């Protein structure tokens, strides 16, 4: 059998599946989707650092 570098968290366990309406989705996949939406929102909302050189420019 494979000598595995053991992961810190073992994900080789049965998945949790969430059901609502016709949708069945594993917890891992749902977390990925939620994370994408959160990261997208943060990317748009978080202020972007401005540089000193921009002072005095028209924008």
């Amino acid at each position: 059998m494979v000598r595995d570098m053991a992961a810190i968290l073992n994900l080789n366990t049965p998945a949790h599946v969430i059901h609502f309406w016709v949708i069945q989705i594993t917890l891992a996949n749902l977390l990925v989707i939620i994370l994408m939406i959160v990261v997208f929102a943060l990317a748009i909302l978080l202020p972007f650092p401005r540089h000193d050189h921009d002072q005095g420019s028209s924008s």
Partner: protein
Amino acid sequence: MSRAERKREDQRYRKWTGAYRPYDLIKEATIAFAVVLAMTFALTILLSSPDDPPVTMRSWSHAAPADFLSVAASELDGSSGTAGYGPPYNSAADGQHMLFIYPAKWLGVAHPIDTTRDFVIGPLRLLSGESGVQSALGTWESASPVQQSAWTTAYTNALAKATTNADGSVTVPAGSYGPVGTMMDALLAQAQSGGLDGALLTSNQFYNTDYTKILMMIQDDNGAGGYFNTRAQAEHLIGSPQWGMMNETGSFPGQVWLWLYTFWYQINPFSSSTNADLLVITLMGVLSLALILVPFLPGIRSIPRWIPIYKLIWRDHYRSTRRTQPEAGVSSS
């Protein structure tokens, strides 16, 4: 927007002639690479990746010998899923269609499989030293199709009452199965020794990388919840129906980007259609083309204008533009 207006707008946004600020492209790319590399390493060290061992004829026949025999009998009498699949494996059916279009049928039998010969007779013929098996094969091949069918039907019915012994063999209640009992016992022993894996991988050349035949037998299910399907069900790879295609074994994230593809299988008309695969893949082909052609699709291309998320993205620019050009006449909403 009229075509002339659209053309004017197109010209308007071609070039930015306003302010720039210093920017280091290579540095940004290097930082991005380092960040993503660090994330990849972090995820690997924290979570690793799955590597569930594959099903083999040997593991299947040891773990579920009665199930193995049930599938083997269906391959012998041509009642298995593979035997009745149609193109590209055989001509037993027409394959899926949409209106008058039969793509599988038109493309033909590209990977021919004769389940009786390829999954049972052929491998058993390799046991040339076992005279009992060869004699049973002779009896089978000289019998009429009606007689053969009677034997396999009786055997399959008896399998439901079979008992699995400690040594992995299966005892079927007495009945008139002709040579089928001997053939199935031999195939089971061959599988449990590992010989069937090799036999199903051989072709007319030494090197072979094509696992079609062995995989088709492994995935055949008599509708009784076969070994392969049961294992997939335990890993949530099936879903009901088809959500499983987004999933990975264990609790790992899978192929989330397949969400729309698998979604169509859940709703009518796809969920009740025997041509669901062809319908869904065609629909997704059309939607993929639409995604590529978004700039040309009326309505779709205007949604960003109507739902102004862009005002959040460019709020710094709008704020500073209003500061320096108060008479610019730009609307504030």
